[in-house]
């Protein structure tokens, strides 16, 4: 069963990223995702970037044909939504280092927002290819987070990978948790750093998804399914999974290297 929702709002977050808001009453926790059906086109997994209240949101980065179509959607258009699916971040942490690369910030922002309601202290390490692609920087700031940025082209903040910023923060401060989402190579590095400093890490994973019901095996990730055992995995599960950062599966189920 899908619920057909009408898009109420469209926000161009960055040149390549758009947020769509729509009324969707089921309760959701940050980290959870929905399956978004663009009628006449594909259905793709999207983290909820707004989880509180009835007006939920997704924040979509252009990756290919379907995400381009999603981006082109205007208020008034219909989407089919099912979910939310999957597990979520434990938002009752006290001092959290949030490490986001690219569209990874989409799932981290609502987690940060909910953590704030529990009084968490937040440091956000945000990476993007260019300054104008830094997603949700203002949103993190307005939550009272200390935000540090990294850009591939050096147009703002640290020139290079956001992992360096994360390593620096972990070296200087004590954290109770690291939350991360982004390219798996990035997450591998953040994991290594968090481990070196003894900080529990939770990473949000992506795999090709079809059923989102823990059945079809499309999202197999070692002995886990990202749709039902994830998308948020603790460090030990990530480390125990040989495919982490190395292999994913294409829609036919073939194991392909990143």
């Amino acid at each position, binding site marked *: 069963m899908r619920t057909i929702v009408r898009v109420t709002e469209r926000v161009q977050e960055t040149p390549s990223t758009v947020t769509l808001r729509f009324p969707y009453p089921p309760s959701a926790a940050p980290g959870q995702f929905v399956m978004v059906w663009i009628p006449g086109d*594909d*259905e793709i997994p999207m983290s909820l970037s707004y989880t509180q209240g009835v007006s939920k949101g997704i924040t979509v980065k252009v990756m290919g044909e379907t995400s381009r179509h999603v981006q082109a959607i205007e208020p008034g258009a219909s989407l089919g939504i099912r979910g939310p699916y999957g597990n979520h971040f434990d938002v009752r942490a006290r001092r959290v280092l949030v490490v986001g690369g690219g569209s990874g910030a989409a799932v981290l922002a609502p987690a940060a927002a909910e953590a704030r309601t529990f009084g968490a202290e937040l440091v956000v390490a945000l990476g993007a290819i260019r300054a104008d692609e830094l997603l949700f920087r203002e949103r993190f700031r307005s939550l009272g987070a200390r935000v540090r940025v990294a850009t591939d082209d050096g147009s703002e903040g640290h020139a290079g990978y956001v992992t360096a910023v994360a390593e620096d923060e972990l070296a200087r401060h004590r954290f109770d948790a690291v939350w991360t989402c982004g390219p798996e190579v990035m997450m591998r590095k953040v994991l290594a750093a968090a481990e070196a400093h003894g900080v529990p890490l939770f990473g949000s994973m992506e795999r090709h998804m079809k*059923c989102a019901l*823990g*059945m079809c095996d*499309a999202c*197999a990730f070692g002995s886990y399914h990202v749709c039902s055992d994830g998308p948020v995995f603790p460090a030990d599960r990530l480390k125990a999974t040989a495919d982490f950062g190395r292999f994913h599966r294409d*829609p036919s189920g073939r194991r392909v290297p990143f």
Partner: protein
Amino acid sequence: MADLSVRLAGLVLRNPFLLASGIWGESGDSLSGAWSAGAGGVITKSIGTAPRPGYPNPTVETYERWGLLNAMGLPNPGIDEYPREIEVARRAGAPVVGSVFAGDAAEFARLARRIAATGVVAVELNLSCPHAEGFGTEVGSEPEDVERIVRAVVAEVRLPVIAKITPNTSDPAGLAAAAEQGGAAAVSAINTLRALAIDVHLRRPVLSHGLGGLSGPAIKPVGLACVWQIFEAVSIPVVGIGGIRTGRDALEYVMAGARAVEIGTAVAFDGIGVFERLNRELSALLDEIGYARLEEAVGAAHTKL
């Protein structure tokens, strides 16, 4: 504690609950996960000659709490890549049944020979997928076709061959008898029922492929009828499939004539823990009814009519 082990076409299974084809079946880790979770054996996703991405999403649609429609479109990594997944599951100790689909008898035979070489304990032939052009139901709806395909496969492999029969037919028993005639060691039934979901607001079918297949509790009475009719028509063992979620569902299939059962949609609805619960429930139920061994119950309901 009743004995749940069953002998099926020369195999001995620790319990009758096989992971159905298409569920947790693309990766070796998932197959062995189902085995660790308590399955009596695992059946692979139906594998074809070449890798297939399957249909675009939406590929599934849940129907209230009692059914599930899918039109995956037989995605699979192809027979060249898939043996490594079987190997992973075999190393974990799982008895793996290799499921294959093909467009004609010769392709079935080729695929069966290749998958038989990977150490599977049996081969299941998907003669019954209701929504893949050129495959499944399209090659498995006529008794002559079923017999020819099974015969071609049996000639190629030494393993037990299980023919998976479609319910989208006027005569499931006739198809099963044809499979027996062709040399099948067992038949399994049922695959999904041809089905459709429409979204009235969008005025279109929900699944990208339009037509799909219905599984889950909704189809249990249909699966039971097929197994009942097949049991009366053949002397090879029958594997019951369709909507099994509880130990009682499973025992209904066994009493209708099944020696083993396959579990599909229940994994989506209840999680992989369903295997442990099914074992527990079936065992308790047999104790309550007074069976020491599950096998005593096979076909038990037939003596009464």
